[in-house]
């Protein structure tokens, strides 16, 4: 799975809550409609990103697992 993206953020190695905090900052810096590719190794990152997008109204376009890395494509929806 792959999407076009405008910015990339690597949160590999970071533990909770840093991936969410850095993702929030990075998405806030995007224009509405732009996409962030975020990579994390925190096993809790999938449910956390899902919870974050559902609460904040941003859009998780898709995600995939590459070895021990989780890759997320998040669109700034508002």
């Amino acid at each position, binding site marked *: 799975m792959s999407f076009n993206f405008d910015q990339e953020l690597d949160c590999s*190695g*970071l*533990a*909770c*809550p*840093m991936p*969410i*905090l850095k*993702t*929030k900052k990075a998405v806030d810096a995007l224009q509405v409609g732009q996409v962030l590719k975020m990579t994390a190794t925190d096993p809790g990152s999938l449910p956390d990103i899902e*919870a*974050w997008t559902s*609460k*904040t109204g941003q859009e998780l376009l898709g995600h995939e697992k590459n070895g021990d890395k989780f890759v997320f494509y998040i669109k700034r929806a508002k």
Partner: protein
Amino acid sequence: MAKRLAIISTHGSLDAAYPPLILATAAMALDMEVAIFFTFYGLEILKKGNADKLQVAPIANPAMPQPIPGISVPNIIGVLPGMTAVATGMMNNWMKKANVAKLSELLAMAQEMGVRLIACQMSMDVLGIKKEELIDGIEVVGAATFVEFASDDAVALSF
């Protein structure tokens, strides 16, 4: 859905200082308004240069993992001089290995994101803590200020 998170932090040990700061910053990321009310030993977290010096005591803390896996050390050993420093060093080491942010980093992040850090004036008077001893940007106020914040559509957590 509640729009605010109101947290009370009453403990100044290394392990007790993490949950309020982790939940506060996470809630800010989820677009909530957040305030932490630091009272009694929770004030230790706010003292200048102190966040990364907090300690954890092994005595009467049976849930703490054994220093050497598989070898059971009686809890009473924790009364020996120096054991608090040993336990603190161990815990800092585990946190570092797991890449958990330092308390000073979480505190700075909380301030940057706009968490209201509120210090209890009464506790400061009781414990003899001066405002100048705390990091910058702290509101030193009474209980009513925090309760007023918490009274408007908030979830409250106490640590």
